[in-house]
């Protein structure tokens, strides 16, 4: 059963992560564009560092770090009277009330918490990628358009929200589309984050079973389970390609500027 549910888990993860990553990306791109030096530095650093590191390396320590950070902050707020140190040697000890989730919480809460952490981690990584795409897209909006807007007396935030943002999507879509494809293919790494995803179940169910511990003994069947995964991913990619193609046609329709057309060609 878990095997079938895990497909839903993966789809759910994709469904939640994509908008979150887009949000992070938008913030990152805005920060990178900012005229205020600290923000701009922060934005560029976020993009450069997270993009420069392989996702696995990031996943290996980030989730634990995030979990500890959350518990640490809750500990500081919820248990101000706690006198023992949080780091006792290698142990990370916070008061029971600061535990996330509370250790008395039922298992499904623990699982959804783990899932939320996974979504957040994915969103941070892919947020950096999409920040990069959006940053490029914002710059690709013809400058003359913004100059005209300024000439009409718009403030820079008005220009940003009314001129740049609505127009950037058509430039960003090819990059974002590819990002979506990459995100799909990054989901097998979910099991690193402690989520029981399709790879976990394929390994678990496909692995050979001896008759002593199961009613359905079988030899090593991982090959067939992985084949099912392969087909799943190929089909999913194909469907995404078709949908993105349609979306692109929709968006470019009416954006008949020569620059937009050329940009579309270059990115296609």
């Amino acid at each position: 059963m878990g095997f079938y549910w895990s497909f839903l888990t993966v789809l759910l993860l994709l469904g939640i992560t994509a908008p979150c990553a887009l949000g992070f990306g938008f913030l990152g791109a805005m920060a990178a564009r900012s005229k205020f030096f600290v923000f701009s530095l922060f934005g560029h650093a976020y993009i450069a560092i997270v993009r420069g590191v392989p996702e696995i390396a990031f996943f290996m320590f980030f989730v634990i770090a995030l979990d500890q950070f959350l518990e640490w902050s809750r500990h500081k707020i919820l248990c101000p009277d706690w006198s023992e140190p949080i780091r006792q040697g290698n142990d990370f000890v916070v008061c029971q009330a600061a535990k996330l989730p509370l250790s008395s919480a039922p298992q499904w809460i623990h699982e959804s918490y783990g899932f939320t952490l996974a979504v957040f981690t994915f969103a941070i990584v892919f947020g950096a990628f999409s920040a990069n795409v959006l940053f490029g897209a914002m710059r690709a909006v013809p400058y003359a358009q913004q100059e005209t807007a300024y000439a009409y007396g718009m403030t820079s935030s008005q220009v940003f929200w009314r001129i740049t943002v609505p127009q950037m999507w058509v430039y960003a879509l090819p990059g974002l589309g590819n990002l979506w494809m990459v995100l799909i293919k990054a989901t097998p790494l979910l099991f690193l984050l402690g989520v029981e995803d399709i790879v976990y179940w394929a390994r678990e169910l496909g692995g050979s079973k001896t008759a002593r511990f199961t009613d359905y003994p079988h030899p090593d069947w991982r090959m067939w389970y992985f084949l099912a995964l392969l087909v799943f991913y190929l089909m999913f990619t194909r469907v995404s390609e078709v949908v993105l193609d349609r979306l692109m046609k929709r968006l470019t329709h009416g954006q008949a500027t020569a620059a937009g057309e050329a940009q579309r060609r270059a990115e296609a």
Partner: protein
Amino acid sequence: MKSIVLGTTALVLSATFAMAAGHSVVRMGTEGAYPPYNFIDDNGEVAGFERELGDELCARAELKCEWVTNEWDSIIPNLLSGNYDTIIAGMSVTAERMEVIDFSEQYTLPDASAYATLSGFSGDLSGAVVAAQSSTIQASYIASSGATLLEFATPEETIAAVRSGEADAVLADKAYLEPIVVESSDMSFSGDDVYIGGGIGMGFRKSDAELREKFSAAIQEMKADGTLNVLIGEWLPTSGQF
């Protein structure tokens, strides 16, 4: 108004301390991929020797327990980080691990590790290619011996490697290999058993001495009245009894 707020704070605080004193639910971390110690059964539940042992121990210590699975590679960091309260995953007591976590009273005698090979194998194991799961005591044992170590992420793959001829032998806990060797005609044990680690114990955070004591006491109780031996006899026929 102020006094009401203070009152609630005091209430929350006292509740906090009450909870900090004892675990309301003990989360038991295991791997779920190492039969007969622990594995996922047909219903998707954790099962095996350690499941039965753990449930019995919790009943004796009057604790409410819950089972959690975690990848072997990160099983200790996640304990330290407090994602569960104890490791019960066929983990041998070693000096290296003792530096970071504490172990309960051991609940098996030092378990033999054994080499399994294809049935016709007649070579010299000391110079052979031997497969083992990464970051196990068996892997570091082979690395320091003369044999060539071939590391895989899961125990499943180590067996597959012997079948495919990638490795001459696999070194793993004898209790893990035994059902596989018995049921398959193409594999058999070779060479002498080796004793690498200590017995198996439950792992705890060093700061959690209280919980450790509770479980150690329960294990001692089970040793004393012979119920532990019954469990060992049932699940781990190749292991020694107390």
